[in-house]
């Protein structure tokens, strides 16, 4: 006789932990099964060379939703709030910006940036309200759905006529047009373009990139934070919150399948053959993995299975980790500047050109990078005086035409290091260890299909009402007892916890009406 749980959560990623904690808080008996030995999914700190540790996937915190913190009473210590971004220039004339301030540009650009930031923040705030609600269904007579839709309409109107018009215009637009309309400084245009396309299969000219930019802002008002103790600390805090709400978390327990009996979910079976019983299974895994691998398409209907298999989720971001025996030299940067986020995106056309090859299954010969040196704040990550550098490198398409073999990974590593050397000329002599994770590596290590950190491309055709797919945006899947709570659901990826929280709320609300 196996033990019966009220809910089993597959995967202890941050969304899984948030969902489990909230269910636990509501008095449910919850079990979380995590494949890896460590909780946190893509928000983890792990060793990659002797005495060197890095945030292995996500490396900055900017979207953790205040609602999540509040509901779980989280108190995450931040080593840095409102971290500065430095858009690097080879000549040392860098542009620096943090949420609403920019330096190193003309007065006109600075004024325009403030205006830009104010407007974007306002729209992001509007968006944020809806990121923290399950999307309403369309065309139903359900009162709650109608209220949410009416609220959305009202909130748009409350923006005022001018801003509402602007919102309706901007929402489908690309970042390229917006930044070229507003700014003259190339570095600023390049940097904001990169902000909009990080983690996506989009270039700055692709319509939809205003949306991705707004999404980035919808959390902490665009303020970038570095948690004390690294990203792993966030996950630990969430795990702690879950445990204190009575949740059982078992690591090193990869799930083999979701057990379906007579048309409903009855539990899960782990790869080591253990069975756990529950009439509610919540998957933090991506929708494709969940439906096609863990559940099996045969247990759902054909149209739904087809939609799931049509989800676009092929990552483009690689991750580079360097162990350094000291801080590199960057012209125009002082030591304290290494606590900032450093960008290599010299102009908006450069970013677009970096994207071009990704469309054809090739890596960027001139990649764009988001660099952070987490050891600058957290001395536990590297031996004294030494450092680790963590960089997100684009574009490295998951489905590489030639395939991601060792040679391809090495080649992209070389390409990336060459690019970094342009800005950090002495870096080569400082490197003691290198790790490059391609999207395929990320897929394997973090169990996210396509190595895509949004668990599904973040575009309007996969957003809100239609995320993860049409007709299944309310976290409950069309299989009794099955729920999703990961980044593949509304609102999407990033260490925000919104999907996990929405899923828990949707699940509890459903129990109430059932």
């Amino acid at each position, binding site marked *: 006789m196996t033990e019966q749980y009220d809910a089993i959560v597959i995967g202890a990623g941050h969304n899984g932990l948030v969902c489990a904690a909230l269910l636990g808080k509501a008095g449910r008996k919850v079990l979380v099964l995590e494949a890896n030995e460590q909780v946190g999914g893509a928000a983890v700190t792990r060793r990659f060379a002797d005495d060197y540790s890095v945030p292995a996937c996500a490396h900055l915190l900017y979207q953790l939703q205040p609602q999540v913190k509040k509901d779980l009473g989280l108190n995450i210590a931040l080593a840095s709030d409102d971290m500065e971004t430095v858009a690097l220039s080879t000549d040392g004339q860098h542009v620096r910006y943090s949420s609403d301030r920019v330096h190193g540009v003309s007065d006109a650009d600075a004024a325009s940036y403030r205006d830009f930031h104010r407007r974007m923040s306002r729209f992001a705030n509007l968006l944020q309200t809806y990121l923290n609600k399950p999307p309403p269904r369309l065309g139903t007579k359900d009162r709650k759905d109608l209220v949410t839709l009416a609220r959305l309409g009202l909130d748009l109107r409350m923006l005022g006529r001018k801003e509402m018009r602007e919102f309706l215009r901007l929402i489908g637009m690309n970042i390229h047009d917006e930044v070229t309309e507003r700014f003259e400084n190339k570095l600023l245009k390049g940097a904001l373009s990169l902000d909009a396309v990080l983690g996506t299969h989009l270039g700055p000219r692709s319509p939809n990139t205003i949306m991705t930019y707004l999404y980035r802002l919808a959390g902490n008002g665009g303020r970038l934070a570095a948690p004390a103790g690294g990203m792993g600390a966030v996950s630990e805090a969430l795990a702690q919150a879950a445990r204190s709400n009575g949740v059982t978390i078992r690591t090193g327990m990869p799930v083999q399948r979701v057990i379906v009996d007579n*048309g409903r979910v009855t539990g899960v079976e782990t790869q080591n053959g253990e069975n756990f019983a529950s009439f509610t299974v919540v998957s933090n895994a991506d929708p494709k993995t969940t439906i096609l691998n863990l559940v*099996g*398409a045969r247990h759902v*209907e054909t*149209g739904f*299975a087809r939609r799931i298999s049509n989800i676009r989720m092929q990552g483009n971001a690689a991750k580079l980790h360097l162990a350094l025996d000291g801080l590199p030299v960057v012209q125009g940067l002082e030591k304290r500047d290494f606590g900032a986020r450093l960008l290599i995106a010299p102009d908006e056309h450069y970013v677009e050109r970096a994207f071009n090859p990704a469309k054809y299954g090739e890596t960027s010969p001139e990649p764009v990078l988001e660099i952070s040196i987490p050891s600058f704040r957290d001395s536990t990550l590297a031996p004294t005086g030494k450092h680790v550098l963590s960089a997100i490198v684009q574009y490295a398409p998951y489905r590489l035409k030639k395939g991601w073999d060792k040679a391809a990974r090495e080649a992209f590593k070389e390409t990336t290091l060459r690019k970094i050397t342009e800005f950090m000329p002495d870096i080569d002599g400082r490197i003691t260890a290198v790790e490059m994770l391609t999207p395929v590596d990320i897929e394997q290590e973090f169990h996210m299909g396509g190595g895509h950190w949004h668990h599904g491309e973040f575009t309007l055709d996969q957003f809100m009402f239609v995320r993860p797919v049409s007709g299944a945006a309310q976290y409950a899947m069309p299989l009794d007892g099955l729920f999703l709570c990961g980044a593949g659901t509304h609102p999407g990826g990033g260490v925000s916890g919104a999907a996990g929280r929405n899923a828990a709320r949707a699940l509890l609300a459903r129990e109430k009406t059932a």
Partner: protein
Amino acid sequence: MNVIEVHQGRLESPFYPRLKALDRLDNWHTWKGYTTPDALFDAELEYFAIRNSTGVFDLTPMTKYRITGKDSLAYVDRLVTRDMQKVTAGRVAYAVWCNDQGQVIDDGTIFHLREGEYRLCSQERHLPWLMAAAIGFDVTIREETADIAALAVQGPTSYSIMRNLGLHGLENLKPFGLMHFDFQGTELMVSRTGFTGDLGYELWLSPGKALALWDALFEAGRHYDIRAMGTHALEQARIEAGYLAAYQEFLPADETVRTGRSRSPFELGLDWLVDFRKPNFNGRRALAAEKLKGSKWRLVKLDIEGNKPAHHSYIYAKPRKNKKEIGFITSASWSPVCKQNIAIGSVRMPHGVTGETVWVEVYYQREMHWSRVMAKATVVDKPFWFPARRSATPPAPY
């Protein structure tokens, strides 16, 4: 690269030379790209061959798929609404399949040829849907329309002709059963199925032996008044038998531009084909909801007074006052064998209960003059033509 242009005209079925040789009327149309006779010598006599002796119809253009593989049973069971576990090897099932919204994509017959091997035969083409339905199953779906030649041999003398053809053992074959025979070294599959509501068989084999089969069949039927027939005769028999036709009684759900123009199995009177004891099949969730909420439409068979066929007519609840249409006719015909004015129609719920009287607005023209009658009609539940010989096993010899 030397490219051969795709055939620009109508395709010819492997039986075409024989049909052409028998053709007197030169009345042909296109059916799924194939040239198919409306009628060959006399549409009325062709019809009476079905009801009186034996009519032969070339079925080759029907769309056919072969489903094989370890999961083929689980696959077809999830595909269609009825329980396929009960359809053992050697049996044939009439089935409908739905999309996730519980709307009918098409109907057709599924032949359980052997363990783990099925043939699905339908009017329309469905490869993308069948392949999407195969996600997660170990099955192979192959379109085999042109690889199988098929004949319908229908009518009271058909059994005798089959026996004459040397197909022994058919006497025990019940309706919706199938058997394999050797025909001149080629496998011939015979199923006791048809689209006429009468005693009859369908013959399936590889196109290479099509003409030999035709010749042997007509030789075997020489003294049994065997006749080739066209679509016209078949259509008349189809309506008498109360069978559905795609694009008449329903539209394939994924081919409707306008919302609300498709139909669920319940709305087509196919409740008996929906088995909710199955834990999962396409459309189950939507159909379960419809069962609770009620359907919008009902398909009815109508016995209409008078003798003017009610083609394309509106159906009303009342003849005059508060005249509001409640539906429309989908197929209509004078039934020569029942001497009835019959039709199939779609009416809005709650109309259409058996025995209900409705009114059909019939327009007809006589020597340039158009007339309109409001004909009284009764909803009937049984097929108009349902002879005992259809299901008698063994069939009575002629």
